């Protein structure tokens, strides 16, 4: 095992791990926040085309200084660039593209993911919290593959991969892979399966997550 795999991954390393699993030429949507780190790790010739919910295929990196164009933003309302071959479309078309199953992969952040792939990432349900869903529910059920990028444990040490989500759901049985600092796992109707661990043994990981010790 290389030294890089004997300790937990940084955010950049998680992003690189996700990028490595995105097939060349895929149409990909990235959720706001940490998933936007993924393109930094896509190879020059990956041919991956980024979709943004606000109506474009062919999004480029963030723009800065004089290059900032306020008519050219990403899902997080940050100024970005357009790549050659980009296309613009209105919001109903943008979400038809998602729901119609045309996107290959989306990468989303999460509060919790259940072992069978239920996703909770839009609302904590806490009193006084203002609910805001954006495009998360449409993406969760629309893309052919839904990847989640998150830390495996909350700040209080509790797992974010859980038997049942306690936060309000975004989508049911929609997440296929969960990429975290401690492990990559597959989720789905058959339960969670450990693909790879970082800085923790699989036995210890299973114990902390309450997963059965029998490898599937």
């Amino acid at each position, binding site marked *: 095992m290389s030294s890089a795999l004997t300790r937990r991954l940084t955010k950049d390393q998680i992003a690189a791990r996700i990028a490595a699993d995105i097939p060349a030429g895929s149409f990909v949507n990235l959720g706001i926040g940490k998933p936007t780190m993924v393109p930094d790790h896509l190879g020059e010739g990956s041919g991956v085309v980024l979709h943004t919910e606000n109506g474009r295929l062919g999004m480029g990196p963030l723009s800065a200084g004089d290059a900032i164009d306020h008519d050219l933003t990403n899902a997080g309302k940050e100024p970005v660039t357009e790549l050659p071959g980009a296309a613009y479309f209105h919001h109903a078309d943008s979400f038809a593209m998602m729901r119609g199953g045309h996107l290959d992969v989306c990468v989303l952040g999460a509060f919790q993911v259940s072992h069978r792939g239920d996703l909770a990432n839009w609302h904590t349900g806490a009193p006084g919290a203002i609910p805001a869903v954006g495009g998360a529910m*449409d993406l969760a059920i629309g893309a052919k593959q839904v990847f989640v990028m998150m830390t495996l444990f909350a700040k209080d040490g509790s797992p974010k991969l859980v038997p049942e989500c306690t936060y*309000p759901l975004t989508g049911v049985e929609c997440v296929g892979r969960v990429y975290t600092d401690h492990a990559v796992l597959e989720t789905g109707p058959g339960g969670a399966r450990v693909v790879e661990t970082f800085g923790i043994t699989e036995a210890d990981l299973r114990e902390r997550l309450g997963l059965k010790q029998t490898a599937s």
Partner: protein
Amino acid sequence: MSATTVCADVREAVAGIPDGATVLVGGFGMAGMPVALIDALIQQGATDLTVVSNNAGNGDTGLASLLAKGRVSKMVCSFPRQSDSWVFDGLYLAGKIELEVVPQGNLAERMRAAGAGIGAFFCPTAVGTPLAEGKEIREIDGRTYVLEYPLRGDVALVAAHRADRMGNLVYRKTARNFGPVMAAAATTTIAQVGSVVEIGELDPEVVVTPSIYVDRVVVT
């Protein structure tokens, strides 16, 4: 609908919007936000409005300014909570504004349906979540869907890049966002544009919103 009016100023453009109207407001954040029309609506004075827009205002200008003036009784939007949504946050937490949260794709598709004469549609978004509670569910070919209804506006305020004197609109980059669906979903559509060109000067192949959907245009 009658021919599009090219208005002399924003005051003329927003004239006659009544109290209690449902107003569709374009924009995704500030991109495509019709700030000049909203400022004119503030001056015009209509109140008790229901506003449909992706966000619930950013910073202190545009939609946030209309909210701050207390003119909006209900927001229908997908993503109210943002780092710069302090105006909405304060009103909501004080119980001074009603909120209907709609998944972004449903927000767009419900307006598309309104403009397209669709009575309702079954959509897979939000199945099994709190936003589908109380709604009709149907299984079609093994997949579960939620019944969603059209979302109509009395008025749409949109920002476009350029119009011709017919009222045909073209947009610029991601500022297009909700403009085309809102233009079709409202009884009266008002567009603020960067310039108005003569009839025939827009390439018909690149018109995004045809003039039939546009009632008033104003250069801002």
